[in-house]
């Protein structure tokens, strides 16, 4: 088991996760644009926001890989199947809480279910399992996170 492997897996996994979500976006399965959602926390300029968003997203990918590594060490086991299972939990957490509840709560430009007539946010909230961005978003998110988890698990186990 290797911490460095997990971190490297986090980087590669984030590339795969981002690319697969981007592909789903391009194919019209989802309107979710994670770098834009993250970047617009810091800037209203869409170009700047996308750049910042990608940086934040990759940083998150590395941080999460450390969390995966901690679980691998605690359990004493790593591997692509275990990683993929953690990816399922990760997807449920991301869709059910992280992006659905926590991001709108801190995002200065995103609506929440509590936004009322006094507010004029310019980004719609993701909704449960991010389904406001298209019903297939939940599937895309799941597949992307399972792939991420499998890669982190595989890299951590030294493939």
């Amino acid at each position, binding site marked *: 088991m290797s911490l460095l492997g997990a971190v490297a897996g986090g980087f590669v996994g984030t590339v795969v996760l981002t690319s697969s979500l981007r592909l789903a976006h391009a194919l019209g399965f*989802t*309107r979710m644009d994670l770098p834009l959602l993250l970047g617009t926390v810091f800037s209203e300029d*869409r170009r700047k926001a996308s750049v910042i968003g990608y940086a934040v997203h990759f940083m998150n990918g590395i941080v999460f890989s450390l969390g995966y590594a901690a679980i691998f060490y605690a359990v004493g086991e790593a591997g692509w199947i275990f990683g993929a299972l953690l990816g399922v939990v990760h997807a449920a957490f991301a869709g059910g809480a992280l992006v659905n509840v926590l991001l709108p709560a801190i995002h200065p430009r995103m609506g929440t*279910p509590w936004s*009322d007539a006094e507010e004029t946010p*310019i980004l719609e909230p993701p909704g449960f399992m991010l389904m*406001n961005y*298209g019903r297939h978003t939940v599937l895309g998110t799941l597949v992307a996170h399972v792939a991420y988890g499998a890669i982190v698990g595989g890299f951590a186990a030294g493939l």
Partner: protein
Amino acid sequence: MRKDGYLPIRDYAAIGDGRTIALVGKDGSIDWLCLPNFDSGAVFARILDDEQGGSFRLAPTEPFEVERRYQKESNVLESTFRTSSGTVRVTDAMTLAPGEALVPQREIVRRAECVSGSVRLAWSIEPRFHFGVKPTRIERRGKRIVALSRGEALGLGAWDAGDPQVNGGRIESEHELHTGETALLSLAAAHHEPAFFAGREDTMHRLAHTERFWPKWAERAHYDGAWREPVLRSLLALKLLVFAPSGAVVAAPTTSLPEWIGGERNWDYRFTWLRDATYTFDALETLGYEDEARAFFWWIMHATQMTAPRLQVLYRIDGGKEADESFLDKLSGYRGSRPVRVGNGAADQVQLDVYGDVMHAIWLHAREHGDLGGETGRAVAKIADYVAEHWHEPDSGIWEVQSDPTHFVQSKAMCWVALDRAVKLAEAGVISDRAEKWRAEADAIRAWVEESGWDDELGSFIRAPDLRELDASLLTLLLMDYDAEEDRLRGTVDAVRRELAVGPLVARYLGEDGLEGEEGYFLTCSFWLADALARTGRTEEANELMAELVALANDVGLYAEEIDRDGAFLGNFPQGLTHLALIGAACSIAKAEAA
């Protein structure tokens, strides 16, 4: 006041909070409320079923006369009930959250103040969650009463309003108020959250905050022309239709209020029509509400991502593209007008005019704010390419006819508008430059409209080459700066007035549309006519028509989609497009008078 258990549609007023709307009847009954959002299931739907729909009633027990108004430039409603023994003023509002306080997700507050004598008030709440399809139970929690259904809850707060009793599916009470006394009711909704039990002081604080917010919002309006009062009321009505969490604007907050009593023309309008984009964006920008305009613009850009470059006619307010239509057989419909629909099948129609409306809105946005961003700019260029490839196809047109698709002249003209604006955007460097191709196609469309869309005998553009009759939507050629000879545009305005208007009322068209039965006069078309008159230099006629139309509003200044010859409102209510058309006409008159 009620006929067969139903109030006339014009007897309703709307209160809202930017997420949903309640319709308050002249007799003090709240007969429509969807929770938590505009497009959710209704908990009060008495307007669609007098017996099973559910309502929140509050009125004197003895016979009364009622006078209503909105508090000055606000969406807080005041109804003054006069009885033989005294007068009570009821204030109805959906509250907004003051600051960071813990507040209910949605809340209706009803405050009754006895201003003279004494008045015995009766109130009752019959909640029927999810249109009454799913069971509702009512329980006591200590001194409080809560109504529940699956993940939904309504917590009741009642102060100086009698001793609430639960009788079957109803919470009710009576209480006598004397001069200077105030009763207060709060109905707080929770969606997938614990029920919220409001305190009296907090409720009063939220109501006071809401009463302060609306005039402050309305005073930002930049409008000094004639018809200021109806313009401001329309603006406030429009703001009620903005879904704050996403920036989308619903066409109307109701479903299935009929376009003809007893007819089948009953549609769900709780969606956002892209067609309204231009008018909404223009109205908000012109009147100084840039934040709302910008939020709506970006909502359009986000919502259309999954279908672009093809644009759907309508989208859900959360940006979704699904609008599957089904019938609520359990509800009897407004005065027996069935079916009651949820969802809207028009989402699947091809309506080419939408492209003109959206591209014009994009152009207006770019003119005000410049750059769209590279990705959005490329997406917009692809929409223009799509129009260039598909304009020659038949469609269902602006009126969403159910008859076979045909070549509607208005649709073609709006395709010209789409390509013309694309050329302007390209020339301004905002989108990819394929201006030469787009200009060539625009010229081809113009040639088609001039050749096939004109009738010498009528002296007007026509509905379609195979439907040689008038269509009031042709007035939008003027509104959208379609490039035609002035004589032809003027001739079309005259012909619409001659063939489709009865006094101030204008029919959409008189011919076939694939549906059974009749419909009322379309109020938007009346305001478009006033707008077109102003744009063709006939401001005096435009002002005369506006005066007649403004007099047709209900007692609180709201309009439905349609109206019959007797002045009865028909169709969904309040109707965003009607109010947008009023604002547009007033602005055109003001501009013409200033010129």
